[in-house]
């Protein structure tokens, strides 16, 4: 079940400006991504299978969602739900929290950038977004998929059992999340050193 590095990944782009949606769509398609664009945070949540007041998607498990989104890229300044609000909703959702989120903004405001990164955004792009910025997206998607695989392998093994991503709802701070991730990677490192199997 290796991750195919050439696989076409699906990016959901959120921006209230039609022009910017056209632009980001072209940038993403030129970079070999599949693209869906929406003009608001609430529409984005719909595409992701989440209603605004839910924290988990409906009865269908993630693997059965018709639309699998590998990364969300969103404008910060939008009327109604801002990109920050959308980011929060995604990170608070048990089913969506592992989807990498990238924020775009026309304004370089350090406090804004920090706020987003602290809330779990992978990156912050300054607008206008460049073609070279697109290259920074794939590593975030692959990193997420790698972790996902590690999780599945851990779950399948008889010896190590790790429970990650328990009921969240704001009780998990980012620091603790970072620590959990460290523990996870440490264990996998030990596994790899003790056995030469399972090379990705």
């Amino acid at each position: 079940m290796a991750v195919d590095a050439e696989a076409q990944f699906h990016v959901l782009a959120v921006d209230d400006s039609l022009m910017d949606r056209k632009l980001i769509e072209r940038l993403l398609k030129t970079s070999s991504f599949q693209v869906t664009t929406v003009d608001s945070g609430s529409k984005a949540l719909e595409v992701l299978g989440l209603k605004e007041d839910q924290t988990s998607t409906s009865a269908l498990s993630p693997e059965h969602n018709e639309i699998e989104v590998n990364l969300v890229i969103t404008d910060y300044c939008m009327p109604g739900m801002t990109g920050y609000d959308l980011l929060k909703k995604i990170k608070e959702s048990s089913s969506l929290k592992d989807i990498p989120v990238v924020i775009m903004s026309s304004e370089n405001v350090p406090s804004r950038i920090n706020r987003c990164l602290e809330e779990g955004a992978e990156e912050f792009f300054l607008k206008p977004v460049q073609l070279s910025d697109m290259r920074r997206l794939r590593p975030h998607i692959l990193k997420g998929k790698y972790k996902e695989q590690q999780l599945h392998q851990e779950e399948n093994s008889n010896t190590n059992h790790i429970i990650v991503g328990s009921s969240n709802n704001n009780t998990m701070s980012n620091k603790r999340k970072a620590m959990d991730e460290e523990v996870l990677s440490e264990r996998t490192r030990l596994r790899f050193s003790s056995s030469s199997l399972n090379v990705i």
Partner: protein
Amino acid sequence: MSLMALRERLNVLVNSMFLEGLLDQQFRQLQMLQDASSPGFVAEVITLFCEDSERMLTELTKLLDQAVVDYQKVDAYVHQLKGSSSSVGAQNVKLACIQFKQFCEENNKEGCLSALNMVKHQYYSLRSKFDTMLQLEQRIQAYDSEQQN
């Protein structure tokens, strides 16, 4: 006019726009994104930009015509216009918007009115050149599709 002559004319036009500061490097990015799979990309973006901008200029004119100006609304539109002009590479328009934003933040009505006029001036200068550009593009595309048939 031959295809080569059309292309030459378009190049000269675009280069002069760069030299005059009407366009900046962002426009080059847009040109790079146009290819065989999306031959009309630049034209599409320019058209969207013009539609968007004229809509916002109309709204801004209305807002500044009020006895009591709602600067929050004005700021929101100027922010949008600044964003669009930045995305399309419309340098002079963008710079005029930045100045506009300043006056808006100061709630300076006179300043806003003069800034709006400057934005309009820059926008319409750009618009007329964009029109010529699009016409040339169309004629070039017509040649290309003729040759493919």
